[in-house]
């Protein structure tokens, strides 16, 4: 079980997007999410869609991974589409079923909102598909660095994130072990009414928490023994460096944004 486990959805690769500095990716996505709401006509949506499709193609990630990223939000997309379809009463009536009138405005509005959703989700999932969790942690630490001036515990936050990531597989193995141990004592996790199954989780969670606390205590001691005394005066092995390709991608993105502002009505 443990050997096939990959944390997050990272798909290894060597494309330009994979090799970008994670900070570049995060900053671009941050502005992209704002920019998506600027689009307001066919041309601007067309531009954004082309941009997203080109980005997806340039990562060389198999399409099934990208579609997998959309699965948790399918329901939301369809739901909002239907909502607009039923509730927007604008434009000429297209057709009528069981005396409910469907307007052209509703169809268009529904399509536009769904497209916007897809554009947002696809781009943000590209971040986690092409960046390892630890790179994202490093990038967040680096980007939040200015907040240190207002006493925001940036280093501690990043350390917490990276230790959590490191312990996810360990705790999953442990959960597996405990659930087998409890199953052998007759706890039934799989059948029965929902309420019963929820109750069966308790004998799983209690030992898991107890051992997690014990681990935390031992880890803290080991870290102290290894000379950890907070972020002050600490050097880092993993270093992020901006390269020419980051600048190139930035300029490209700014061009896309400028073009978008130009074509929007």
């Amino acid at each position, binding site marked *: 079980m443990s050997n096939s486990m990959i944390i997050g959805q990272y798909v290894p690769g060597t494309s330009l997007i994979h090799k970008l500095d994670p900070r570049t990716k995060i900053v671009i996505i941050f502005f992209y999410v704002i920019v998506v709401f600027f689009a307001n006509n066919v041309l601007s949506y067309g531009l954004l869609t082309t941009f997203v499709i080109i980005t997806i193609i340039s990562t060389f990630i198999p399409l099934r991974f990208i579609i997998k990223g959309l699965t948790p939000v399918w329901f939301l997309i369809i739901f909002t589409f239907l909502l607009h379809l039923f509730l927007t009463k604008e434009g000429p009536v297209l057709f009528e079923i069981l005396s409910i009138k469907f307007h052209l405005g509703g169809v268009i509005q529904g399509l536009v909102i769904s497209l916007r959703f897809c554009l947002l989700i696809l781009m943000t999932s590209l971040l986690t598909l092409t960046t390892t969790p630890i790179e994202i942690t490093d990038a967040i630490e680096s980007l939040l660095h200015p907040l240190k001036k207002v006493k925001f515990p940036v280093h501690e936050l990043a350390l917490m994130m990276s230790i959590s*990531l490191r312990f996810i597989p360990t705790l999953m193995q442990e959960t597996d072990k405990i659930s087998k141990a409890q199953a052998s004592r007759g706890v039934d996790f799989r059948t029965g009414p929902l309420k019963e199954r929820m109750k069966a989780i308790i004998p799983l969670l209690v030992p898991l928490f107890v051992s997690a606390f014990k681990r935390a205590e031992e880890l803290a001691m080991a870290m102290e023994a*290894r000379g950890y005394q907070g972020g002050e005066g600490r*050097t880092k*092995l993993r270093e992020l460096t901006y390269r020419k390709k980051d600048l190139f991608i930035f300029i490209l993105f700014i061009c896309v944004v400028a073009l978008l502002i130009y074509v929007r009505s």
Partner: protein
Amino acid sequence: MNPIVEFNNVSFHYGEDGPWILKNCTFSIKGNESVAIIGHNGSGKSTIAKLMNGLLFPQEGEVYINGKLLTEESVWEIRKDVGMVFQNPDNQFVGATVQDDVAFGMENRGIERKEMEIRIEDALEAVKMKEYRLTEPHRLSGGQKQRVAIAGVIAISPKVLILDEATVMLDPKGRTEIMETIGHLQKEKDLSLITITHDLHEVMKVERVIVLNKGEIWATGTPREILKNGSELQKIGLDMPFLIELSQELKDLGVNVLNEPLTTEEMLEELWILHSKM
């Protein structure tokens, strides 16, 4: 030669009025010496380890490391000289990958990045884990994780390496790996080695053994000297290695085993000599 670790009448207890865990312990360990501290559970052996790098402070007596008195102020200096490997391989692995974990101690000490790269290479070479440099911890065995922990310690080039029951949670294969790694390190590096254990198998190779019983030093001596008192050791709750038990039994049967044999070869030698006398 100046002692690298010196305990001077050290006593320790937890809390305000807990029972004494250590009582008037006085001993010293020289540079490059390999010492085993053995004792049953609750004999205070792990407390001694924690006192050596300031995870705990004694209520009475003084601890000197490399000539420096252990105090709240000097504790960070002292931790530079004392590296520790703990019992649970999982709960001391901080980094996301092997190289991140080896770097952790160096990062804490503000070592330059280029220097870190070189030292990671050397340290992983020393524990024979070089090809695992970018591996995540959950893909490693317990023995491999402990070797990474040892690499993390030797990367900061300490003067003392303490193994606090470092092999207890490992399978026999992992245990052998660690014992080999340590034997190798002792020859190569300039450091004192302190093994804390309740397993008498691990004391065969050290130069000196300190036996603890109920917080007091019960005996010190070479492994041979200590293991001679087999039955006494069993009384204070320590397990005898098979060879020692065998020679004990032989003695009881009236077969005279002269030298206390510590290895299979030595035992063979003894038996062979005995036969030829008969």
